């Protein structure tokens, strides 16, 4: 493979990798460490990659494997099988409602997802990866990717709906409170 400039590679991918790491680990310090481990692995093993078009997938795969390795070490992560054929209709949330809430709320809703769904849904929303690439990164069949995206999106909508309703209740309370104040 032709030489790849490491600084350029960092510049191009460190932000999406960090966001993926944050989604997986739900902890800023762990996300930073995952990105660092990923680029270390690249510095040590990246030259083995022959196909430059695979660099992005390689980096995301490496980060995900590092995350799984840490989880297994911590014995907190249990991978369970799921039925590939299950697709669900997500509850309705209007795009304008999402526009009105801040990124942290969306991120928190994402963090509430089950481990199995969080990774594929995050990669889906990054809009940088095809389903095939997501399947490669997570080492699961493409059908499983799609069913997990379907169910993960439904869970995310529910969490977003809760946030939107909670925010609406706060506004009502504040308005009600000011009438007495």
């Amino acid at each position, binding site marked *: 493979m032709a030489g790849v400039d490491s600084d350029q590679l960092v*510049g191009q991918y460190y932000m999406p990798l960090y966001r993926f790491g944050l989604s997986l680990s739900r902890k800023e*310090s762990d996300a930073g460490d995952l990105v660092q481990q990923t680029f270390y692995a690249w510095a040590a093993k990246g030259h083995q990659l022959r196909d430059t078009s695979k660099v992005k997938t390689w980096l995301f795969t490496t980060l995900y494997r590092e995350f799984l390795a840490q989880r297994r070490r911590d014995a907190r992560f249990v991978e369970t099988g799921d039925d590939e054929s299950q*697709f669900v209709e997500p509850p309705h949330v209007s795009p304008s409602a*999402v526009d009105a809430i801040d990124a942290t709320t969306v991120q928190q809703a994402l963090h509430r997802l089950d481990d199995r769904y969080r990774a594929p849904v995050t990669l889906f929303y990054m809009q940088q990866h095809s389903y095939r690439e997501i399947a490669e990164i997570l080492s699961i069949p493409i059908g499983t990717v799609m069913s997990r995206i379907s169910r993960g999106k439904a869970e995310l909508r529910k969490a977003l709906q809760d946030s939107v309703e909670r925010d609406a209740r706060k506004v009502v309370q504040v308005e009600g409170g000011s009438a007495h104040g």
Partner: protein
Amino acid sequence: MDKREARSFLSAYRAGESVDDSRFAEAERHAAADPELARWWTEEQELDRAIGAKLATVAVPADLKARLTSRVVPLAVPQRSWRRAALLAAAAIVALAVLFGSWRGPFQPATSLADYREEMVSFIKVTPSLELETSDLTRITNFLQKSGAPTQIEIPASLRKLDPFGCRTLRFRGHDVALICFKRGGGRLAHLLVIDRAVVRGLGSQPQYAMEGEWATAAWTKGERDYLLAVQGDQSAAEKFISDS
């Protein structure tokens, strides 16, 4: 396929992406023939874009890029001949074995002190985010214990006289490292990094001093742990904090 099923498939489908599953093509045909379903799907895609756009603005630590670019080793230039490729591959295997701790030699830990020192200093020189900020050493010890980081840490007496600032754990080539920061005054910190003894090669009970840029370091072994102190200043600054008096 009824409308509800079509919705459930379309919700997981990105328009235009080739998927080897006829159910998605069928759901797409439903949407093409049903204006209400088409509107629903258009709104779904708008919603996906809105969520994606929000997630794309999640803040990334300002110092992360600097931390990464100061620590990533540039890749080797492309190999042109098989002989050169073979030599570099052999070198890479040895480097990898050393890097990931799989090659230990006869009873030798894999990582050199120089590598460990360089990597740890490059980490702390861009002020690291801490997982716990407290001046209570007992809380720090408890936190590190719960985090699975090296415990039974013996902090030099001179360092113990300083107020702790906080702690965190980090990873060094697959091993946990405990980092405890102490306040030195003048807004500066003394950083103590502790790792299991088996990881770093060439350490003994006598401190080894070295400079990493503007950082003075001292490294030594005590009990089952290897210790690395890093402070800004010259060697005397490091010496001052590791004396047992």
